[in-house]
């Protein structure tokens, strides 16, 4: 239990790093995508410019209190996920506030921001937002099944829910990564990650031309800037979550950045290659193959 200013500042520094890393990473991904298409792509500083632009806009419209604090929920969700997870393995100052809980806390805290954001978006009264949210929640429910199976398989394997213990168990060489010690769970988990990142083929939630980008359709200026801040953080944190679970975690910022980049890249890569799923197809898909793999993973972990 350490609520000291020092701790706070370290955590804040970590947050600042991953925020910027998240923005850079998204610019990188967009550039990679552009290269695939034969384009040049955005300048690397584009995310910062966009953010700055949004914060500098002069119109602030509010649909109500919940609309106002929706982005707050969202950002708290993202930041909280960061804070409740140790960043760098084995270094106390980078352990953030992970003493408050562990994997279970994180699994549930994932939805905190989502639900708050959903509230905010739907207070705007836009049907597009509501449709987007209903899709997002439906898909989320399905994605969580393989995700949970993977988490449980890992928990059985390591007999713990604690990040540091899971990471500790994966130290000492690439072959100790869960990816290799428990490949089925890893596959299930990574497939679930595709859904969690909501890139194509699982991005019907934000179908831009059908339901103008879905839930945040009414968000603009500073509200949108908070949402974009969050998404930059969240992408890194989500990637870090999977990194910690399957790819041995990171024992330095250097490893952290490389691993999160590649984990994130997987989902972007899949998104580049595959077209979009309809929502019911996506649910069926998650409840079919990833779930089957996850169940086998749990059975293997439990009874092998």
């Amino acid at each position: 239990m350490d609520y000291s200013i020092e701790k706070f500042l370290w955590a804040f520094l970590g947050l600042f790093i991953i925020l910027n890393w998240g923005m850079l990473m998204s610019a990188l991904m967009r550039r990679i995508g552009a290269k695939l298409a034969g384009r040049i792509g955005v300048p690397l500083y584009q995310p910062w410019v966009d953010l700055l632009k949004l914060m500098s806009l002069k119109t602030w419209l509010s649909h109500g209190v919940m609309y106002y604090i929706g982005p707050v929920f969202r950002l708290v969700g993202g930041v909280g996920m960061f804070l409740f997870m140790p960043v760098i393995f084995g270094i106390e100052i980078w352990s953030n506030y992970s003493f408050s809980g562990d994997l279970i806390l994180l699994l549930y805290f994932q939805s905190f921001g989502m639900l708050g954001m959903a509230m905010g978006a739907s207070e705007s009264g836009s049907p597009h937002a509501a449709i987007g949210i209903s899709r997002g929640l439906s898909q989320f429910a399905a994605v969580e099944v393989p995700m949970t199976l993977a988490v449980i398989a890992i928990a059985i394997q390591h007999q713990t829910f604690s990040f540091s213990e899971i990471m500790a168990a994966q130290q000492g060489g690439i072959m100790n990564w869960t990816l290799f010690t428990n490949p089925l769970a890893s596959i299930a988990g990574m497939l679930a990650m595709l859904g969690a990142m909501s890139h194509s083929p699982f991005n019907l939630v934000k179908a831009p031309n059908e339901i103008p980008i879905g839930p945040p359709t009414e968000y603009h200026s500073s509200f949108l800037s908070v949402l974009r801040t969050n998404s930059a953080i969240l992408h890194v944190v989500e990637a870090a979550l999977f990194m910690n679970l399957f790819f041995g975690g990171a024992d330095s910022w250097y490893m952290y950045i490389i691993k999160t980049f590649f984990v994130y890249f997987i989902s972007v890569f899949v998104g580049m290659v595959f077209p979009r799923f309809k929502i019911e197809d996506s649910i069926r898909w998650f409840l079919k193959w990833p779930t089957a793999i996850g169940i086998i993973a749990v059975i293997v972990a439990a009874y092998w």
Partner: protein
Amino acid sequence: MVGPIYIIALALGLAFFLGFFGKSLKTFSGFVMLAGLAGMTFISGQWLMAFVDGSATTQEIFTAGFKPPFSINLRMGIEEATFTFMINVIGLLGGIYLFNRLKEVGNSAMSVFIVLIMSLNVIVMTRDIFNLFVFVEIGSIATAGMIILDKTSKSLQAGLKYLLATGVISGLLLIGIIFAYYFAGSLNIDGIIAANLMASKAGAVAVFLIIAVLVLELKPFPANGWGLDVYESSNPGFGAIVSAGTATAGLFVLYKVLPMGGDAWYQYISIIGLITFVGSNLVGTQQKIANRLLGYSSIGQIGLVMTVIGLQPILGDAFAFIAFALLLNHFLAKAGLFWISGIIKKENITDWSALRKNSALLIMFVIFIFALIGFPPFPSFFGKYELIMSLISSDNIWVAVVILIGSFAEGIYMFRWLGHVLKNENSEEEVLDIPWNKFIPIVLVTVSLLAAGFYSVPFVAGANYFYFVPLAFILFLGLIDFLPAYIKNTVSIAGMGYYSWLLYPLVEGDLMRTIFFAIFMFGGILTLVVGYNKSGKREGFYPVALMMYAGLATIVTTDNMFGFFFGWELMTAGSYFLIIRGKRSKPHAYSYMLFSVAGAYLILLGFGLAHASGQTQALIALKDISVLPTLAYTLLAVGFMTKTASLGLHIWLPGAHGEAESDVSPMVSAVLLKAGVFGLMLLFLYMGEQTGDTLLFILGWVGAFTALVGNLAASFQEDAKRMLAYSSIGQLGYILFAIAMMTQLGWLAGFTYVINHFLFKAILFMVVGGIVVKAGTHNLYQMGGLIKKMPLSFLAVLIAMITMAGLPPLSGFAGKWLFYNAVILKGWYIQGVIVFFAGTIAFLYAFKLLHSIFLGQLKDNHRNLKEISPSILIPVYILIAGIFYFSAFPQDVLEPIGNMLANYFPSTLEWAADGNAVTILSNWNGNAVMIIIISMFVLVLGYLWLITGKTQKLEQFNIVYSAERPFRPETTHVSHNMFAGLNKAIGFLVAPGITNFWNNVSKMVLDFAGVVRRLYSGNGQVYAIHIIIYIVVFYLISIG
């Protein structure tokens, strides 16, 4: 003392004497008749008193001054005194009831009536078999006469059928009697018994004929078409006499004569009784005509008493009480029902809603119905309880099962009837004409019924007069029902408060009981506070609500099985009435009741097995069940699960909770459901993990699927309250799963769920109930945008929903965290994942509810709505304070529970000094999470506020709409079929398979009843054939 022979002399003398009076003196003759009946009542009553206080001994009355067997002798013992008194009372009351009708028909009708009552007296008293025959015949002929008291074509037909049938059976009786005389050389019953005719085949046949005919007089199923016709077509006032008086005498005769046959015959009689009880009630399920329905019920009840008579050797000491309690109950209740039928004058039970015009009559009707089904505090409850206990103790489980099946079948039609009475349309024009002479007898039997229940207490182990204390309070509330609701509300709250204070010492020191006690009583008081926003009188609400709470209090404070069952049934009855108060609740309350009754019977069987093992009524007997332990535990578990609405047994819940009134829903959902949980917890604690290994495993799966299906169904609901109801099913599934794990963490999770579910479901139902009333609709898609009108409600629902979804930092997460640890430690991985999946689906409906009611587009007709009443918000915010306390300081609540559980399970959870909960798998610091999240929230909110300038407030249509504009709020609000994608993908999981299953079951039962009742073709000759077939078959089974 006046000798019993004067009953005969008085009755016959008066009957003959009435001939002197002409037509002009009809009223006078009527009073003479009543005086005669009163005299008979007095004589038997005086004997009864003498026997009760011990001042009299059994008297033999020798007619003509000769000792038997040479002359006919009568006996007056305590049994005879009781039965003649009962018969005479029913005769007197019946006479008062039928006064006008008898007067219209004439003096001869009065003579016939008084002779009928007299013959029943003699039937009871006589010890001579031929004399018995003569007076049975007198009874038959008098009955045949009274049938046509209302001379309709139907009653004429019924009378002829009756005469044909009784003619055939009396002929057979005569053959039996004469051969009995031939073999025994005596006509005295005791002489025949002493002669032991069963030794020879022919003697056995003679005995067979006598007993079979006496059985047939009691109209055993299925050779009873003639009897049913009598019930259906005759004057209901007379139906009461037949059902109560004649049957009572007939049963006594059977009891008297049965020793002729020896032990084997007891068995046959019990089988016949069982067949009658089950068959008659089963066939009755299809019946719509009130009087015929009463006929089926009468025959069924008589069958039950017949069974008990047959079980006499098995029941031993308990026999007298059981038989008498059941008989008396039937006697009083059925008489009352027939009499009410005579006032209502409606043939079809669907038209009986006219009864609602008079609340006194309605209440008495309800009392009779509940007495017949065997609810406390009526004698049948005590009798049935004792019966089942004794049967199981003596290793006659199947008999107990069959009896309960029969009772259940009776419940099927009785509660359908009650539903019609309470909920059907009522025409305004008709006036209910209630003459005082018809009303008084009904009141008297009602009072007797209540008194009989009270005096049953000393005969049943575990029963306690204390159980009547809340009932007295309920009675008091019933008496002040004319006062405005807020006064009664205050009185009720005060009463509950006082009662809680009174009972608290009983649970003190037992944490588990204390928690449930707190939920029941504190929750009860809070839900009652909500009632302050109701205007008017709320007639009938407070007695039944308090009845439910009294039942709950009894369940949680009692330490014996009887008390538990008493409370259980009381609670069921009270909640039934609460539920049926809803506008469209009729079918739902009905299915609730059926499931509850079935569940209660399973529990009773389980208790019976426990009692048989431990020979004690204490609940501790559940600990070591040696008689069929697996069965016993399964029965108990399934019984409790009917209340917790586990998958397969849940179909009653959505309608029952969804259609109930706005403050009843939280009562039944947040509070009542916990009774089932309490039962399960008790059961599991006593059962232990080893004993119930397989059962627990299965229940774990059941719980998991319940959670999934409940939540999934909730997310597809369009009705706000039904959604919450389905959510309850899901939440109770979690609880079942958690406690089925039988580990400290599992139980701790279970307790957390119990507390949380109480808190948030009460909030949700209170608020949503209040909104539904304000908004005038249950449908989510017809609401929307209410956040601006009802911000406090929104906040309450939001907090409740976050708790429900298990999101940190609120206390819902405590349950989830414990749950995960428990699942991994227990090794129930796949089930755990199903439950987790259910948990994520909970987000869906949480969002749907919040969005559809509070967010989105405000509807035009809701533009002027105001915040819901403070009488709802105050209890709601008290509960929210509870949630916050529990969330911030989970240790304060969970540590004591954990310590308590450590007595039963190995402890796997430790609490660090800083509030960190640690298991070998995981840690969680609720306190820290709360602090961090709140600080973050404040920081981020400040940041947003900093970068945001002055905001422009918008109206509901100021949205981007692809450069167009919305037309109407209705077409802009996304709510209906919100999760269409999910529905397409996995909607098949909530296809109404289980509902269809139960529908098919009930359809099969009803169809079967429909086929069986074709036996009753209406042809009197066919009925005579039935009698002969019955005799032959019976002969083949018993002797041949």
